[in-house]
């Protein structure tokens, strides 16, 4: 029962990661790509949760915690960069 749902969760998260990666590649502007990066970080937290369930090693939850924190800091840094005028070319 649990093995099947873990497998299904892996599949669903992999498809979601693929969709997010498409947006990361085609994203027309830098903020769209930042949103995609943040979504990838959230998806990775989900992957770590599923892997913690399938492996039984609870130490991976620390990794998920640090990853969530780092993704937030990256988003704040990117937002600051965009607001200050970097990354966008004015003609």
């Amino acid at each position, binding site marked *: 029962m649990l093995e*099947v749902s873990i497998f299904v969760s892996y599949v669903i998260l992999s498809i979601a990661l693929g*969709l997010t990666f498409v*947006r990361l590649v085609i994203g027309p502007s830098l903020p769209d790509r930042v949103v995609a990066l943040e979504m990838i970080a959230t*998806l990775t937290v989900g992957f770590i949760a599923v892997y913690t*369930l399938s492996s039984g090693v609870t130490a991976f939850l620390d990794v998920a915690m640090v990853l969530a924190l780092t*993704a937030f800091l990256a988003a704040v840094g990117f937002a600051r960069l965009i*607001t200050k005028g970097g990354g966008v070319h004015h003609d």
Partner: protein
Amino acid sequence: MTDVVVSLFLLIGAGFMFVAALGLLRMPDLPMRLHATTKAGALGGGLMVIAVGLEFFGDVAVAARAAAIIIFIVLTAPIAAHLIGRAGYFVGLPMWSKTLKDELKDRYDPQNQVLLSPGEVSSEDKPDRDKAE
């Protein structure tokens, strides 16, 4: 019994994450993409971490970590979305062509990026904003 509940949380969380990714790919402009990923993504991640906490039920260390992750996701996702959306609005990204109303139009001081009150008019004739209050 525990397996059923854990599977339920896991699958619902994964489903919300899938919906978030789908919205990120399909929505037409930046605020709508933020709308899709912030709420659905945070809810999906929280549900999956809840599933982990229920699987190791009774383990205080796991429960504390799971609660910390959930609180952190729920606390930081809106702040990050607000910052990115604000930055995108200042850069002047084009909105969706069928957007009906932009209530922030002409409300932002372009120099110091301060939001004006509804009563205040423009920014050029009032250089000293603190004295006006």
